[in-house]
């Protein structure tokens, strides 16, 4: 099998996609936004609970999609809990660089390691939107918008 493919569908990605973390609705969310990719029909809904200091006190997501989009949402939800919205946006920016195969040196070392499993997406330009769908929805939720485009 193709090395790029093995990189893309690593065990940990498949695991996240089969057993997504923080999956479901969040009853006490105060920021909610949807992401939708009209080209493939993939959908994700992000629930955030921001505290008074604009920190992500809790996070969850729902939706259906391919392995990449579900795993990416799951991974994101793991990483964002406890961060400030500003940090979340910085992470988003670094993540976008990473999956597009651009210079991702704006990522903290720890985050880079954690996100490394998503780097394989950069070899699949048509799948970048799958990987970023949940992240854009997260940003929309922070900004108080109802929905995000996939790109």
């Amino acid at each position, binding site marked *: *099998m*193709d090395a790029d493919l093995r990189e893309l*569908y690593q065990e940990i990605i498949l695991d996240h996609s089969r057993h997504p973390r923080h999956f479901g609705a969040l009853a006490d969310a105060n920021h909610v936004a949807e992401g939708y990719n009209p080209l*493939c*029909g*993939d959908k994700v809904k992000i629930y955030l609970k921001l505290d008074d200091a604009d920190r992500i006190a809790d996070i969850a997501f729902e939706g259906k*999609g*391919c392995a990449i989009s579900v795993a990416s949402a799951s991974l994101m939800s793991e990483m964002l809990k406890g961060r400030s919205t500003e940090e979340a946006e910085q992470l988003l920016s670094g993540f976008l660089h990473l999956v597009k195969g651009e210079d991702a040196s704006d990522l903290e070392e720890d985050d880079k390691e954690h996100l490394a499993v998503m780097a394989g997406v950069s070899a699949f330009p*048509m799948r970048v939107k*799958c990987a970023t769908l949940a992240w854009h929805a997260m940003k929309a939720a922070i900004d108080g918008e109802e929905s995000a485009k996939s790109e």
Partner: protein
Amino acid sequence: MTRPLPKTSREYDVETLRRDFPILTKTVHGRKLVYLDNAASAQKPKQVLDAMTTFMTEEYANVHRGVHFLSAVATERYEAARARMQAFVGAAHEDEIIYTHGGTEAINLVASSFLAPRIEPGDEIVLSVMEHHSNIVPWHFLRERLGAVLKWVNVSEEGDLDPQDVARAIGPKTKMVAITHMSNVLGTRTALKEIVRLAHEKGVPVLADGCQGAVHGRVDVKDLDVDFYVMTGHKLYGPTGIGILYGKRAHLKAMRPYQGGGEMIRVVTRDNVTYADPPMRFEAGTPPIVETVGLAAALGYMESVGREAMAAHENALARKAEAGLRALNGVKLIGEAKDKGPIVSFETIGIHAHDLATILDREGVAVRAGHHCAQVLMDRFDVPATARASFALYNTEEEVDALIAAVQVARKVFS
């Protein structure tokens, strides 16, 4: 224009035909390309590329506009192409063939120029749930803007459409039936002639979306008695940017123009405008001149291969693919209608269609994954997306084997 005889009797020599399609020798990701995304768009034979290039290097000018030599030659080619398209669908008159820029535009033209002026709030349009968005959204416009009501005809679990269900959906307020000739997802070929007969019994005109149907079998609009028939060039082995609308002469003559511009007028003054007769009334501005020449070459190519022979070949491949997929565990075919063309949609349980298509692509196999511009049908079958393999005159049995093998690779990745 004489129609070349179909070569049904001789053996179908797919390897020889493949040589006409230079792109098929490509490798992708180091694998031999296996192009099974033909329902999205077909590849083009050399004959089409050559016709376009020759036209642009020898005979090009704008049409209908000049008395000079090149303009005369270009106009002749442009109108000769119309005659070929007339023969292709069996239209009674050449002026029943309208050049459009695609199948989508053709349907929009009918919705806007034929139907819109006849719609009163509450009037109904009958559609099947397996229509392509191009045969849904133009009618939604009439709902949004004029208060029309869309009436949906369901298909069976297998994907069959019962003509009687269409007839039952027609009521006193029905102004149009818009129905596909072949579903681009299920492959279902509809009983179009019967549908037309039933609709006409109730005095309702029928538009048939032939964007897939015309690719995979002979069309005879006179025999079908259909009011409008729509085709798109790029799926017929022709160029992008061109489509064909067949319309009955009496309808076309009674229709208002669609777009305004050069060549579709009789007289323009400051205060008034009068319009040319069909077909020119509907061909505003500089038409897709080069594309008509390319499409005529494509239709000529199809005739020379033999349309029945092509269809038989394609269907055999599709049936083989279905058998191969059925034999795998965890694969579900979507669309098993009795009369089915060479389009095979399926789900792989536990693998999203996009992941499947990505893995297939790495094996060199190009299929489409998604809703195929048929979200209403996806809702009907309650799937977010399907994978679709669709077959063209140049596909082979080995390519079917490659598809099945690639699906097995995907199952291994996700196992």
